[in-house]
């Protein structure tokens, strides 16, 4: 026989067990979702976010996957990620080689976004950073081979700012110039027009997410010449200026008296 008091303890114990089970279950479920979430943060390099998109982790905390940006893009550039698109399910993206961003002046995609996953502070499309174009195919790019293709350069909405042609010597022929398409990361918006237009079968110039496209100096790194410029003179005084070795006959040549330019380099180098 169980007395009334005893029954109560059993009830309470059962309730406690049930509660613990439920909390553990919910916790387990939450961890599973968390793992999925981490997985979803890895985005394929060719899946670019619309203009103004927050940094990926913040974007995934903000975007409701509503597709309003997709609907308001007049060029059908954007689409919502499906399975196998290498981005969190339902989030907006575009593939530059398929349909690039046309850099609309009024940025309708950003205006349409109700959550701010596309940052409404972006009002000048030239400030967008959807990615950075990189000329990865240096062995196949026609201009690198010494021909004049220039297509990526010509189509760039920010021609001569985001991308320029830099002349260099053609070592193969010995007498011609090469015009190397050169992207300037501070200006390139990552619109992907260049990648779309590249005449090769597989584009030699590709827009990559900025974190893939750019290197970054270590935080402690100081560039000596810039520090010197900021300081107005060399930071290290009274160092013994050992004679530098020149190329000539192998004897050391002192350069103490040579003339230097504004950046501190020798004006002429005469070994």
């Amino acid at each position, binding site marked *: 026989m169980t007395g009334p008091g005893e029954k109560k303890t059993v009830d309470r114990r059962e309730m406690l067990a049930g509660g613990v089970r439920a*909390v553990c279950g*919910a916790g387990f479920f939450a961890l599973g*979702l*968390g793992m999925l979430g981490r997985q979803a943060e890895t985005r394929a390099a060719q899946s670019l976010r619309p203009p103004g998109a927050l940094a990926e982790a913040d974007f995934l905390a903000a975007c409701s*996957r509503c597709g*309003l940006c997709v609907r308001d893009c007049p060029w059908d550039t954007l*689409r919502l990620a*499906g*399975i196998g698109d290498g981005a969190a*399910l339902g989030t907006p993206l575009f593939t530059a080689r398929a349909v690039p961003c046309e850099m609309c002046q009024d940025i309708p995609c950003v205006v349409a976004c109700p959550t701010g996953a596309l940052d409404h502070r972006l009002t000048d499309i030239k400030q967008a950073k959807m990615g950075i174009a990189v000329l990865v195919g240096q062995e196949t790019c026609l201009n690198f081979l010494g021909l004049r293709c220039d297509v990526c350069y010509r189509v760039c909405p920010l021609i001569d700012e985001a991308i320029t042609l830099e002349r260099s010597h053609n070592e193969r022929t010995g007498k011609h110039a090469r015009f190397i398409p050169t992207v300037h990361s501070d200006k390139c918006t990552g619109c992907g027009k260049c990648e779309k237009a590249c005449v090769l079968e597989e584009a030699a110039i590709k827009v990559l997410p900025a974190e893939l496209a750019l290197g970054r100096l270590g935080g402690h790194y100081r560039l000596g010449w810039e520090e010197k410029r900021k300081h107005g003179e060399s930071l290290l005084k009274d160092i013994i200026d050992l004679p530098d070795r020149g190329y000539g006959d192998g004897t050391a040549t002192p350069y103490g008296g040579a003339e230097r330019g504004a950046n501190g380099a020798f004006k002429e180098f005469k070994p």
Partner: protein
Amino acid sequence: MRAAGWKWLIARRLSQAFFVALFLAGPLAGLWVVEGTLASSLTLGVLPLTDPLILLQSLLARHWPEATALLGAAIVVAGYLLVGGRAYCSWVCPLNPVTDAAHWLREKLGLREGVTISPRLRLWVLAGALAASALFGTLAWELVNPVTITHRALVFGGGLMWTVAVGIFVFDLAIARRGWCGHLCPVGAAYGLIGKGSLLRVSAVRREACDDCMDCYAVCPEPRVLTPALRGKAKGFGPVILSGDCTNCGRCIDVCPQDVFGFASRFDKREQTIGQQQGEYVP
């Protein structure tokens, strides 16, 4: 069952079809009355709506949304505070026809067995999803949410994503009776919490006329909610079904041969006694 026993069911199916058509009119016919999905939408270019559960996940993930989304979620919450929280489930949600179909087939095939799940489990699923959003700083439930995945598949084209809806159908058919909407879905659970305070409710106004035929219990997707209102008079329960789990589907109103049920305000404590209704029957 009487001929009139289909009114609310038909109205509900029309409503579900209406919402699907509303969202599809743009992409299919170029009639852009509504843009977006149930996650966030814009009606006629002026009315923004946002799913409150998605907004809550976003807030927990420490993103402060634009005013549009905040306003949109407030409008949705206000709307369902009027018409009943889980009215979303039975009148709007694109998965409801799927689970209703599974249930219908289950009954037709006479499938009785299945796993028993506590209907409270959905609250824990909800808690888990919200905890994950807060802990991992992401819209955790939106990674797997079958409701929004299905709606997106509908509006934007789904491909493989339709398997999610198929999975829910199979689960409800073969594994658990009313398994998804009635036991697991945290979206329903969230709207159920709104429903705890919502104005429009179903009331067993003529509960004295109930002759225990159990028809309402047979059709109700959440039969537990009926008992206090229908049979709890002695224990002091009013006739209004106050449980947030009631989906305001109106199916009980349809099927009751004694016309016990009707829509009412949650504050409407009145009851029709048999004597009032049918004078000749006063015992």
